[in-house]
């Protein structure tokens, strides 16, 4: 198996590389550079690195001011604090004037592990996809993160990039992999059911697909790294061709990928669907893999849910 890499680590490398090409990139942090992996950038470009202390609201406001002067302002913190604490600053100072600010939210979701519920942001996708002008990206692995961050910098306007703490398997390291903003990816073909994923649930879905094949169930995997703007076409096509949709995300089932997909299906192609995510509950401290299992965010639960729903479909 390939080396496991956290998306935040891949981001840190991508940031450094892009900063060498683009003098306008200014990086802002709130006392977490060792965790958000902006320390690589800070060491190389200290003059373009601003550590603003434990004050995320101000960090986002400063980013907005920098952006009005032509900078690509990249503001970093844990998702809980960049997207959560600074939500209103993102809405009013960044998104409303449509400024070129990239908000990075690392340590998103349950896989934060032992730091527990206060640090496990499970609401950020829901918060930020409701804000006009905002683009929301949640990559699955190192390869996708690298390409997604490059696309985020090339895109003129506000972007939220959701990243994880945990080292994860790289599954997009293929020749033909291309991240395109707003495009879903047909990761695996299948006609019995579609599993729609974002973030690290792609890896779990791919493993689940292998197990389901033994049952004779061929699951299509549609991966959605850009939750907003959402690739509605690939979802509607999957609904038409497979007639059953299961969504899987490391986020509350309210407001996230599952909600976004449900909205599209309800209006454009209603088919049975089920959402896998945290069921409107907070996380807790624990080993990441134990937590993911307990809350149903793993291969085993995807297999179980698909079996249940597929049985109903074929009954």
């Amino acid at each position, binding site marked *: 198996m390939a080396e496991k890499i956290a998306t935040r680590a891949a981001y840190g490398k991508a940031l450094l590389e892009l900063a060498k090409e683009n003098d306008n990139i*200014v990086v802002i942090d709130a006392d977490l550079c060792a965790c958000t992996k902006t320390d690589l950038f800070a060491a190389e470009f200290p003059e373009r690195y601003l550590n603003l202390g434990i004050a995320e609201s*101000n960090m986002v*406001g*400063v980013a907005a*001011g*920098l952006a009005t*002067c032509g900078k690509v302002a990249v503001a970093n913190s844990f998702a809980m604090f960049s997207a959560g604490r600074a939500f209103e600053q993102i809405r*009013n*100072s960044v998104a409303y004037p449509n400024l070129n600010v990239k908000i990075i939210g690392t340590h998103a979701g349950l896989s934060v592990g032992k730091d527990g519920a206060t640090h496990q942001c499970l609401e950020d996708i829901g918060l930020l996809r409701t804000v006009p002008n905002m683009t929301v990206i949640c990559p699955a692995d190192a390869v996708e993160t690298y390409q997604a961050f490059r696309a985020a910098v090339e895109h003129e306007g506000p972007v939220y990039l959701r990243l994880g703490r945990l080292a994860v398997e790289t599954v997009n390291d293929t020749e033909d992999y291309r991240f395109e903003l707003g495009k879903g990816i047909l990761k695996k073909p299948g006609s019995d059911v579609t599993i729609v994923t974002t973030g690290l649930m792609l890896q779990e879905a791919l493993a689940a697909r292998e197990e389901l094949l033994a049952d004779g169930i061929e699951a299509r995997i549609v991966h959605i790294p850009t939750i907003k703007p959402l690739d509605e076409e690939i979802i509607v096509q999957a609904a038409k061709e497979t007639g059953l949709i299961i969504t899987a995300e490391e986020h509350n089932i309210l407001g996230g990928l599952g909600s976004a997909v449900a909205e599209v299906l309800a209006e454009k192609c209603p088919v049975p669907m089920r959402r896998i995510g945290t069921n409107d509950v907070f996380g807790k401290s624990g080993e990441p893999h134990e937590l993911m299992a307990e809350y149903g965010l793993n291969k085993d639960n995807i297999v179980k849910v698909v079996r249940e729903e597929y049985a109903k479909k074929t009954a």
Partner: protein
Amino acid sequence: MDNTTRTELRKKAINTRITALNMVNRAQSGHIGGSFSVADILTVLYHKVMNVDPQNPRWVGRDRLVMSKGHCTPALYAVLAQRGFFPEAELATFRETTSRLSGHAEMNVPGVDMSTGSLGQGLSAACGMALAGKLDNADYYVYSIHGDGELQEGMIWEAAMTAAKYQLDNLVAIIDDNKLQLDGPTAEVMPLYSLEDKFTAFGWHVITCDGHDLEALDAALMEAKGVKGKPVAIIAETVKGKGVSFMENNVHWHGNVPSAEEYEKALLELQAQLQEVEG
């Protein structure tokens, strides 16, 4: 400041109040009290101090202003139109559905450097602009204007620390210290105690002046430009509703609209002041 300049600035400040009054009266909504308290500050900035080009509002080398008390658009838009950023006739559309002149300051209006309205956010944006100026070795200044009530927002003090850490001597924050906020006197709603002590403790250079004395404001802004290595806070002591006798120091005029009779009375007072200045 010579006599001609002083007279011209006074006329402009009174005209700004008349225009703001007309805008709020026509829209039947808007914030008169804070617009009147900040009118002299904006007049000195845009007509005397700031280096701007109304024909090229996004000129990269311009001085910038963040109107952090973003609800005082009746004064801000009046001054921007007066300065030539957009036609004064457009002010009649203030707060209308089809107008770009909405209730709070927006960057789609020529001359507005930052969208504001949610209190407490403007100083951070101003820090960002000043930091960009430092990074680019640009010589522009960044001004921000805050209400004293607005300083109750914690984010202001996060930004104050930022400005001191990065020695943003190209940043001047002006406090329109009119002592009143929506619910009453700031001293009752949430006391701020000494703003001089607070900003000094946060590492700022502090200047206090009469916020309705055009020469004192000009002198304070000139002094600010000479300060090196520190951001500057100008505590401008002002009167909410300044210029209309029955509106002065009366919290009712934070956001209320005058009746037809009150409007006429206010207009007459301001017009009389204008005649007096014109001699």
